[in-house]
C-alpha cells in the first residue's frame, strides 16, 4: 500500500495533526491507532480542565477528544483501530510503516511522510527502585485511572500515592469520590510535579496531605499490599534514618512522571534528546530524518492538551508543506540569492542554559520559519520573581518577567522572524532564567 502521509497514533496529537494536514490539502492519509477508539488517553481523563485555550470553555477529556474526533470524521479522514505499528524504517526518501491487526495480519505501507504521535507512558515501578516484595495492589496512576474510569472497578480502599504528577493528584480526588480513603501523597522532590490547581482542588479540598521531600522506602505485605513505610529524604534524595513511618493501605499508586514513547522512533534512527526523551526537531517539528515529524507527548511531555493540539496542528501543516513541495519552493526562493554556502538553511541552534532544562525545537532554520515561532521549554527548579531572558548571540532580544516558574509547568516564548532575520550572522539563541 502507498500513502502520502501516515500518522502513528489517534490521540489528541494524531487527530489534530491529521485534521491540519487534510485541511492543507493532503487527502491520501491514514491514522493508525492501537486502541479500540480514537482519542487516546483523553478517554480516561474524565475530569474537567481541558480546552480553555482551544475552545474558550472548560471541557472534560472525552468531550475534548470528541470535538477533534467529530472534525476528523466530518473531514472523512481514514483511520484504523486496534492496529499496532510494529516498525518504521526509511527507504530512500520513503518510509516503510509496518502494522499489524486481526483482520489484515502484517501489512507494510510505503509512506512519503510520517507524523509520530505515539504519546507517552508512565515511569513504572522498576524505574523507582523500591525494595521489598512485589505484592498485588501496586499500580501506576494511569493504570488505576483506566480501571476506575473505563472499566468501572476500584483497585482498592485505602490508598497511598507516591509522586505528585497530575495523574496522581487527579486520581487522589477520583478515588476519594469513589469512596476510597486516600491517606497521603508523598513526593520525593521539594516541589510538586503537578499543576498548582490540581493540588488545590484534588488534595486541599479533601484534606489529603502532600508530603514533599518524602518517599516510600518499604512495602509491607506478601500477597497484597498491607502498608507502606515512608520516610523524609535529604537534599540528595536519600532517606533520613529515624523519619520512617508506617502507613496502613491496600493500594499504592505511582505517579512518578511520564516518558515519551519512542521505541519506534529509535528503531527508525531518529535522534533522541537526552533531556526530553523525545526526538530532536527543527522549527517544522521535523526530526533528523526528512519527512518524519513528531508532536505531542512523544516529542516532550506537555502539561496541557491544548498545547498538544496546537503543536500537532503545526506538525500537520508542515508535513503537508513537505508533501506538496511548498517547502522545496520555499528553499529555492531563499537560496536563489547570494546566501552563504555553508549555511544555506540559515540554521540557528536554540540552547537551554541557567535553569532552563530543555527547549523544543532545538534548531530554527530561518528560511523555513513562520512569522511567529512558538518555542516551548521547562525549567529545572522552582523560581520566584525572575525573568526569562532570550539572547541572540550575546544580545538580549526578550526579557519576560515571571512571578513564578516551576518544573511542572511548561513555558513558552514566541520568536518573531522579523527580529531574528534582522540580526547579522545569527548562529545561536539562548534561553535562560535570569535570577538577579
Amino acid at each position: 500500500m502507498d500513502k502520502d502521509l501516515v500518522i502513528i497514533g489517534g490521540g489528541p496529537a494524531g487527530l489534530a495533526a491529521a485534521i491540519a494536514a487534510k485541511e492543507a490539502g493532503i487527502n491520501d492519509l491514514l491514522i493508525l491507532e492501537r486502541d479500540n477508539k480514537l482519542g487516546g488517553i483523553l478517554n480516561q481523563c474524565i475530569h474537567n480542565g481541558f480546552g480553555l485555550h482551544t475552545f474558550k470553555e472548560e471541557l472534560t477529556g472525552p468531550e475534548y477528544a470528541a470535538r477533534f474526533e467529530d472534525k476528523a470524521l466530518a473531514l472523512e479522514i481514514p483511520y484504523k483501530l486496534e492496529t499496532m505499528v510494529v516498525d518504521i524504517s526509511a527507504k530512500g526518501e520513503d518510509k516503510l510503516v509496518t502494522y499489524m491487526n486481526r483482520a489484515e495480519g502484517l501489512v507494510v505501507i510505503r509512506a512519503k511522510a510520517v507524523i509520530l504521535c505515539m504519546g507517552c507512558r508512565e515511569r513504572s515501578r522498576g524505574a523507582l527502585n523500591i525494595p521489598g516484595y512485589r505484592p498485588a495492589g501496586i499500580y501506576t496512576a494511569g493504570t488505576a485511572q483506566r480501571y476506575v474510569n473505563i472499566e468501572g472497578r476500584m483497585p482498592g480502599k485505602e490508598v497511598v500515592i507516591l509522586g505528585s504528577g497530575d495523574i496522581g493528584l487527579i486520581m487522589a480526588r477520583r478515588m476519594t469520590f469513589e469512596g476510597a480513603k486516600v491517606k497521603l501523597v508523598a513526593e520525593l522532590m521539594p516541589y510538586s510535579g503537578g499543576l498548582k490547581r490540581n493540588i488545590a482542588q484534588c488534595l486541599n479540598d479533601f484534606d489529603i496531605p502532600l508530603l514533599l521531600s518524602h518517599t516510600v522506602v518499604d512495602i509491607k505485605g506478601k500477597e497484597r499490599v498491607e502498608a507502606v513505610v515512608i520516610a523524609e529524604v535529604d537534599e540528595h534524595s536519600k532517606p533520613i534514618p529515624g523519619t520512617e513511618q508506617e502507613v496502613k493501605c491496600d493500594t499504592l499508586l505511582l505517579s512518578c512522571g511520564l516518558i515519551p514513547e519512542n521505541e519506534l522512533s529509535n528503531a527508525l534512527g531518529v535522534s533522541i534528546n537526552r533531556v526530553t526523551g523525545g526526538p530532536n526537531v527543527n522549527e517544522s517539528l521535523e526530526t533528523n530524518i526528512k519527512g518524519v515529524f513528531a508532536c505531542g507527548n512523544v516529542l516532550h511531555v506537555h502539561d496541557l492538551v491544548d498545547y498538544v493540539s496546537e503543536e500537532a496542528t503545526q506538525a500537520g501543516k508542515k508535513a503537508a508543506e513537505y508533501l506538496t513541495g511548498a517547502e522545496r519552493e520555499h528553499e529555492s526562493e531563499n537560496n536563489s540569492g547570494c546566501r552563504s554556502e555553508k549555511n544555506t538553511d540559515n540554521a540557528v541552534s536554540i540552547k537551554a542554559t541557567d535553569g532552563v532544562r530543555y527547549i523544543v525545537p532545538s534548531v530554527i532554520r530561518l528560511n523555513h520559519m513562520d512569522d511567529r515561532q512558538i518555542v516551548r521549554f521547562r525549567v529545572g527548579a522552582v523560581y520566584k520573581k525572575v525573568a526569562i531572558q532570550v539572547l541572540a548571540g550575546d544580545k538580549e532580544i526578550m526579557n519576560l518577567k515571571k512571578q513564578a516558574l516551576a518544573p511542572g509547568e511548561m513555558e513558552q516564548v514566541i520568536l518573531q522572524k522579523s527580529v531574528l532575520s534582522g540580526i547579522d550572522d545569527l548562529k545561536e539563541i539562548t534561553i535562560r532564567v535570569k535570577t538577579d
Partner: protein
Amino acid sequence: METKEFTCIRCPLGCNVVASLEDGKIISITGNTCPRGAEYVTNELTDPKRIVTTLVKVTGGENPVVSVKTASDIPKGKIFECLDALKSVNLKAPVRIGDVVLKNVCDCGVDIVATSNVR
C-alpha cells in the same frame, strides 16, 4: 487585618491570589492575573463551588460506565451528596455527550450531563 491565600483553579496558570480581610470583609485582592481570580476568591470566601466529574452505571453498552459532570459548578459542601445521588442512577445504552443524566441534582438547580458516548 487578616490575609488569606488561595490557588485560583479557574485556569491552569494557578495564580496565587491573596485576599486581605477586615472583620470578614474583603478589602483587597492581589496576585490574580485576570478578573476571574478575584471572582474565584470572592466565591471561595462566601460560597465555594466546584464542577463535579464522576461516572454513572450503564447497561447494555460497550462500557459498564459513562463519564458525567455537573453542567455548572455546585456548592462544595454538596459534592458527596451529589455523588451519592448518582450511585442509584442506572442508564441504558446508548448514551450521547450532553444527554441529561439527572435533573436538578440535590436541588442545586444544576443538571448532570454525560461527557462521553457509550454505544
